[in-house]
């Protein structure tokens, strides 16, 4: 239990920083490419300004990622032994293929402004963006294997690789990757829009930040449309591969064909039913899950109680996430539509600033749906979470758990403090630091 908490804390914390890295690296690459193509110095200023925020965030993403890799061994040794043949190799591939690239080139990028040609320097940030997202791909392939194990045989008391390509190209991994990356892009887009909105309102650098606002709004709109459409597709895969998770997401108790979707629903897990079910659309749940109004949707009662995920958190997290997705779509479409004279809509700008934390929340909710919805399995259908932990004394785990929470809270607070501080200062913050202090 303690190991579970510790891992959850470590992953969620990691996942608080990584999405911004994934998306902002791409946005930086776009901004810097605009600079190279047009020669407009404003884009260079913007690249450097958002680059500074990017770097603060990047450092924490890296150090928390290392911790995760080692936690499999320290806290989940039985799991590691059981699946290392597949899971371990995916992590190792991630490090050699992607992480090296990202870590080496990010330093080249931020210290190399005067050492490389304009074009080469812009190419470097594209490499960073590509490498970050490749990194996410391998990690999500590994995660998807836990959700839907494929391409393996049980031999020597463990899961052994039978078909590497099947593991890497399984549809579940691809949709998870697309969903996560699109969410990260939307989060980063809203981050850039929000920071730009702040400075548009402050007027001092209005023309400058209108440029980043427009870039970010277009970028976000593309990916938020994709995200919502593809989220639906993702649900279809859950229906196919993890029926218990889908049932928990929808608090769906009884197996039925032509299953309705309720707008208002209050689950009552104790009595294996819903307290309130109102405003149904007949057959719509079946349609959403399987593109067929008559499809059968399995209910939770069809699973023995020990095989059901906790309903309440999964249900709430899923509804809230879906709601936020539509909210982002609406706000972003509005912002994009009014982008040409956005300074005339201060209320909208304020709203966008206030919205910055919500994509973070949505990401964590999505994580909750995926990982809590997987319970009680560590590897879906193969290994229970309780069987995966290390034979380490509980006291050691408790001490390290407390230490983790303390350190992570401290770092999280500092990180957001610095980001907010520099985000508010605007591009003037860049000249504040003498070049000599680059480290």
């Amino acid at each position, binding site marked *: 239990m303690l190991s579970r908490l510790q891992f959850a804390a470590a992953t969620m914390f990691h996942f608080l920083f990584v999405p911004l890295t994934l998306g902002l690296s791409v946005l930086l690459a776009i901004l810097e490419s605009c600079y190279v193509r047009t020669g407009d110095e404003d884009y260079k200023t913007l690249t450097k300004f958002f680059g500074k925020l990017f*770097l*603060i965030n*990047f*450092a*924490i993403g*890296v*150090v928390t*990622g*290392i*911790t995760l*890799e080692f936690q499999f*061994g*320290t806290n989940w*040794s039985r799991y*590691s*032994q059981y699946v*290392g*043949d597949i899971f*371990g*190799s995916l*992590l*190792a*591939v991630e*490090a*050699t*293929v992607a*992480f*090296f*690239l990202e*870590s*080496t*080139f990010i*330093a*080249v990028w*931020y*210290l*190399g*402004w*005067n*050492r*490389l040609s304009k074009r080469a320097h812009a190419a470097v940030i594209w490499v960073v963006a590509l490498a970050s997202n490749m990194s996410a791909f391998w990690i999500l392939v590994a995660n998807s294997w836990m959700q839907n194990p494929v391409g393996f045989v049980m031999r020597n008391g*463990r899961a*052994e*690789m*039978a078909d*590497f390509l099947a593991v890497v190209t399984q549809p579940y991994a691809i949709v998870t990757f697309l969903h996560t990356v699109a969410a990260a892009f939307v989060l980063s887009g809203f981050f850039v829009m929000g920071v730009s909105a702040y400075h548009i309102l402050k007027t001092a650098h209005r023309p400058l930040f209108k440029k980043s606002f427009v870039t970010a709004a277009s970028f976000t709109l593309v990916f938020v449309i994709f995200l919502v459409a593809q989220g639906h597709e993702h649900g279809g895969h859950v229906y196919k591969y993890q029926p218990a998770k889908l049932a928990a997401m929808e608090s769906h108790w009884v197996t039925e064909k032509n299953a309705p979707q309720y707008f208002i629903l209050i689950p009552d897990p104790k009595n294996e039913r819903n307290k309130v079910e109102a405003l149904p659309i007949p057959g719509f749940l079946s349609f959403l899950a399987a593109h067929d109004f008559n499809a059968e949707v399995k209910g939770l009662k069809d699973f023995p109680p020990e095989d059901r995920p906790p309903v309440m958190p999964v249900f709430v997290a899923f509804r809230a996430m879906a709601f936020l997705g539509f909210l982002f779509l609406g706000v972003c479409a509005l912002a994009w539509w009014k982008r040409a004279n956005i300074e005339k809509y201060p209320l909208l700008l304020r709203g966008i600033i206030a919205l910055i934390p919500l994509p973070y929340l949505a990401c964590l909710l999505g994580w909750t749906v995926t990982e809590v919805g997987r319970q009680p399995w560590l590897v879906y259908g193969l290994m229970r979470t309780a069987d995966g932990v*290390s*034979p*380490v004394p509980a006291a*050691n785990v408790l001490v*390290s758990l407390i*230490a983790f929470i303390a*350190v992570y809270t401290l770092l999280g607070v*500092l990180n957001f403090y610095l980001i907010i501080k*520099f985000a508010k200062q605007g591009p003037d913050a*860049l000249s*504040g*630091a003498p*070049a000599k202090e*680059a480290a």
Partner: protein
Amino acid sequence: MLETIWFILWGVLWAVYFLLDGFDLGIGSMLPFFGKNQDDRGEMIRAMGPHWDGNEVWLITAGGVTFAAFPGAYAVMFSALYSPLLIILFGLIFRGVAMEFRHQIHSPGWRGMWDAFLFLGSVIPAVLFGVAFANIFQGIAIDGAGVYRGTLLSLLNPYGLLGGALFLLLFLHHGALWLAAKARGELQSRAGRTAAALWIPLTLAAVAFLVYTWFATKLYDNYLGAPVLWLIPAAAVAALFAARIFTAGKAWWKAWFASGLTIVACTLFGVAGLFPNLLPSSLDPAFSMTAFNSASSPLTLKIMLGVALTMVPIVIVYQAWSYHLFKDHLHDGKNAGY
């Protein structure tokens, strides 16, 4: 055969990690003593600024490869060494964050705090890596189920502590030479003198470790069986002396490479002695995790070998390019980033 290749690669990855991050950890460990003022400390940190992050990935790769190629050993090793490993991780977290955060706010208190973290986050991992590896060399109390039967304190035995001291000295020496190669003026000459002064305790510790290893471990069994392996410790000794000679001649880069070779040869000395064990059990040799009883399936090992043989040379090329790009000294004003 595959297992043997992976065992060698495993050892090489750790050696490369220590070779590269060794100088970062060394510079961090001497930060409060060597950096007399703000300028010195800033310069020390700039000397590793472009590289520490990329260097740390070798650790992640070494960890990842242990997981991928020898999941059994990975699981037992990391859970048995639970406390020291987590302490190392906390150290590295603080080191990384300190490196990025210290220059964000211009106040002496803020900088002082991060400098303290940078120091602790360097010195503690440096020592604990030595302690952990020395304990692996002499065997760890793991039982047949892979459960560790000792405590954190039982790892801090004399041989383990000597290993910690040796690693720290190796890294300090390595870091001082890196600074001597990178810095100019007073800082450079002081770094050179420090490296020369560190060489004496380093050599004493190395000799003591080689001798103690005879009594505390079974590493030499492999050497008696295959005398060609003696070339490894011989290379370590030769490189150590070469480092001293180059230091005296102020050939800083050569001295740094010699010191790096010493680190690589020291690591490989232990790894070659361990074979085929990755984690010998001190309770009963039958409980040891070896390259053969803890390896992944042949298919996974083959796929991973393909990935490693393609990607690692590419990594080496672009990391070498990055070192080349930042090879100039610290004062050319080109490091204008943030």
